[in-house]
């Protein structure tokens, strides 16, 4: 199924999973590629604890981002969605369901996502 939708070449929704041991714990990644956007879930247990949405705006160099589900005091999902939207120029949904105890974990997790974006851009 290849269809021209809004001028882009979209071949259907694609689901992609990967995982990585980071700081002694296995972190799981689940990506759902959509038409001009993707959904990314990051977590160590299969819970959906928050959801942020981000997309670029022509009025601002930083993409707009908002939390649609979860605790607003936890900014991890929001800021990750914003940075991924900036990088990919796509609409990005992010659920960051890892405990917020270690700040260096967040950095390593983000680097792992960037690596996947470079290795497999077709999955995003």
């Amino acid at each position, binding site marked *: *199924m290849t*269809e021209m*939708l809004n001028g882009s070449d*979209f071949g*259907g*929704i694609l*689901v992609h*999973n*990967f*995982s990585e041991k980071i700081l002694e714990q296995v972190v*799981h990644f*689940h990506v*759902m590629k*959509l*038409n*001009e*956007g993707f*959904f990314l*879930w990051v*977590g160590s*247990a*299969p*819970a*959906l*604890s928050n*959801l942020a*949405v981000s997309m670029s705006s022509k009025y601002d160099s930083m993409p707009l981002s908002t939390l*649609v*589900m979860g605790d607003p005091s936890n900014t991890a999902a929001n800021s990750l969605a914003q940075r991924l939207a900036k990088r990919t120029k796509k*609409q990005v*949904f992010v659920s960051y369901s890892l405990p917020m105890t270690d700040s260096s974990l967040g950095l390593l997790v983000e680097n792992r996502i960037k690596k996947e974006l470079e290795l497999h851009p077709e999955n995003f």
Partner: protein
Amino acid sequence: MAEPIIKSRQAQKEVNGISTEVVCTQFSNYIFVVLTQYGKIGTLISVTPDSRSNDISTPTFSTKVLLGKDEPLTHVCAKNLATFVSLEAGNRPVLLGLALKDSSIDTIQEIKEIIKSCKVW
């Protein structure tokens, strides 16, 4: 590679001449269902069972539009499509991404059948 901890199933079918995609993803606290005729998540709606005071009556559900246009038809479609999922998944809330070109009752019924074929719960 080991089995992913997030289980999902997807299907694609023509409904009333429109290519329709369904992806169901299981989380421990939510079932995430994407129903799209645009390839996008579209309107995000949470469908949550109300706390039950007794088990005799059928549970009622609350719908909330988290992202997108909040119009009555969205709530009707969301309840119609997601109630059975929540009931079958042990009263788990359903997060629904809805992007339909056609919201006719026949289409909704057909889409429900596709959701049943993507049962992850």
